[in-house]
């Protein structure tokens, strides 16, 4: 369980988050040193970027066709939802909920017209369907909106930003996780630096998370990282808002942190790592593109509804709360022992 929610605009990096990163830094540096020869393998990737006058860790594919501003019309920018300067509703680092296009998409998705629940579902579905998982330097919500997508954290930022722009409070949660074998093989297996670092740590800490949206008095989590076609390409179920993704096991504990804003400097934390394993990152991005293509074919063939229906067999219902279970058992007991129940109610 996350112990504390860090509010504020993120001028300082919260200690739990810093500690999580520091705990991973040692093993990472050790395996970078151990496998330093691998860095040379990145040379062709660096040269390509140099030729293009880009940073060594930059993502260099042209993403202009994926700029979501294209779907917005002039009227979408009119009568935008009001800005609010309250915690979990205000813009924060990497979460530009005050940007006109973010407010416009929130309006287009039903902010102010739909119930909070329906609007949250619409925002989640839009990010999940429209934005793709790409390993590249963190860009934040606006950058993700204007490009093909970004890392999981970028997608969370976009969902949080749209939610806030639409008047539904939203925050981040990062946690430790263990990927399933398929993801391990895809993301970590091919690169000895990543693989050995992970194998030493036993899990990934604070590198992935979910957006939490405040709906009907409760924080409901959504993780739009895997688009339907990526899920289909990997044979994973498509998850709805509020459901746990099937590609990882959550390892809760000290790595678990909830906060309002990404801290200053966070954006650049991962750039160095990306540069060290740039060749692998390019390969992973290519493989994910292939998987998305494969998934698209699957969804074209059977339709997303049928795919979801078939994969619903993997669905795990949420665990009822202790009080729900208690009430369920009491009701059952009362039904079995009507006399005892009536005696109790007289006492009451």
């Amino acid at each position, binding site marked *: 369980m996350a112990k504390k929610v860090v509010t504020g605009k993120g001028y300082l990096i919260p200690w739990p988050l810093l500690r999580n990163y520091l705990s991973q830094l040692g093993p990472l540096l050790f395996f970078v040193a151990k496998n330093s020869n691998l860095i040379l393998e990145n040379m062709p990737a660096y040269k390509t970027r140099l030729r293009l006058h880009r940073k060594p860790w930059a993502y260099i594919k042209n993403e202009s066709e994926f700029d979501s501003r294209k779907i917005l019309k002039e009227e979408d920018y009119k009568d935008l939802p009001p800005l609010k300067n309250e915690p979990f509703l205000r813009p924060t680092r990497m979460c530009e909920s005050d940007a006109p296009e973010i407010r416009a998409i929130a309006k287009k998705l039903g902010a102010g017209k739909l119930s909070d629940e329906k609007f949250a579902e619409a925002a989640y579905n839009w990010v999940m369907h429209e934005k793709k998982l790409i390993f590249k330097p963190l860009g934040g919500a606006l950058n993700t909106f204007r490009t093909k997508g970004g890392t999981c954290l970028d997608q969370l930022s976009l969902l949080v930003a749209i939610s806030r722009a639409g008047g539904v409070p939203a925050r981040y949660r990062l946690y430790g996780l*263990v990927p*399933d074998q398929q993801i391990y093989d895809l993301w970590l297996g091919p690169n000895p630096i990543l693989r050995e670092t992970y194998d030493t740590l036993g899990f990934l800490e604070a590198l992935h998370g979910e957006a939490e949206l405040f709906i009907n008095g409760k924080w409901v989590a959504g993780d739009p990282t895997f688009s339907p076609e990526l899920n289909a390409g990997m*044979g994973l179920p498509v998850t709805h808002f509020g459901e746990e993704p099937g590609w990882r096991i959550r390892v809760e504990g000290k790595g678990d942190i909830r906060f309002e804003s990404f801290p200053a400097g966070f954006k650049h934390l991962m750039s160095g790592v990306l540069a060290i394993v740039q060749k692998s990152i390019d390969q992973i991005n290519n493989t994910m593109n292939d998987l998305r293509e494969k998934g698209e074919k699957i969804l074209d063939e059977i339709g997303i509804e049928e795919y979801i229906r078939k994969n619903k067999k993997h669905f795990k219902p949420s*665990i*009822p709360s202790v009080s729900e279970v208690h009430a369920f058992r009491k009701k059952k007991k009362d039904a079995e022992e009507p006399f005892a129940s009536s005696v109790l109610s007289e006492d009451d």
Partner: protein
Amino acid sequence: MQKNGGVLRKRLNEKFSLPKNEWRSVDQLIFGAQNYFDMPKDSREKRNKAIIEAFNFHYDNNLFYNKFCKHRKISPQDIKSEKDFIKIPMIPDAFFKDYPSETPENIYKWLYQVSSIDIGDYNFNGNNLTQFLQWAEESLNGLIFHSSGTSGKFSIVFRDNITSTRLIHLLLKEVLFHITKLQDNAHFIYPGSTKTFLTGGHAIGKASELFDDKHRHFSSDKLLSLEIMKLMSTGQAKGLKEKLELKMIQKAMIKGRYKMIDLLQELEKKNEQIAMITFPILLWDIMDLMENEGITMNLGDSDSFIISGGGWKIHTHRMVSEDEFAGRIEKLFGIPKENYRDMYGMSEMNGAALSCEGRYKHLTDWIYPMVLDEEMEPLGFGETGRFAFLDPAGYGYPGFIITGDRVKLLEECPKCGKSGIVIESEVTRMKGAEGKGCGNLMRDLMAKKFNQ
């Protein structure tokens, strides 16, 4: 003194059995059957009745499972006969590690939320998870097992008194009374430590209570705490104390191999029967040592027998076949090949599959097994896929489970006429499923890197 195991069978029925007037349909099969290899003809009908009973019970008493069924639009009205069984909602085995965090209170709350029975109040005051598991077992009068935690998180399976009595009874009956004639003065041997909550060792420890202290032997009495298991499975040493503790356990385990060899030689001289249950890796290691030191025995004269279970990956890149293993046992221990068998089981299953002389694993009759394709649709006999099962012996939790194991099922054994659907050849893991196995963890514990 009786020589035919009559005393031990009687003790089994006294110590690990439920009163006959409390038997449900599944108990007639577990406690009522004399020999699981020779079940009455109507056992499949009894199994079907038991599964329907179990489904109705969990639907009515387990809110989590009730919601799960409602989500699938399945209710007891839909499950009337065997042809409906495929509709019964099954839980992925990964569910058993879905507890929110590894704190005693959260694990207990989670158990409360997902159990089919009321597990009572939480009043634990101890310090660590191992103490918590001890407390929980005592207060619940049951057994708690955890997996090897190869993913960094342990599966935790809680068995109430009814379920654990069924489990221990069936394991003992299967292991002791299906291979050769058990003698009343037989020695029960496990080359490991039973002071653990790790599934294999813990179940063996409980089962060994059938024997008196003079007739049960373990290679080590070191506590393999959950904290140490976590250290083993994730490599995350928390401090000097844990590192030292781990080193001491490893040393004790290594020393235990010599202790085992001495014990076996002593029993060989006395010509007393040995019933050894082991992970293949533990015995393989002992056999390596014997071969290096030129030690051989003749335990066949006392009609001794060996049962293994828990995975065949002896070395990281090498699988050893059951037959190869049997051959090595015959060569070094003088135990005939037919007196060595392997058993397949799962942490979540209250049933087992013991191999016959033809090396086919016969599932106990109350388990309804299925093989599923990638879309979780059932495949027929003879096809390879994901193993799933309906286990009506689970009382505290619904035993309707989808596993990560890859198997091929045959309706009957091609080599013998014994009862039971059989699992053919080696069991492997499905793509995407995490590695599993107490055996694997034990392999790591004994691995050379730790000897250094």
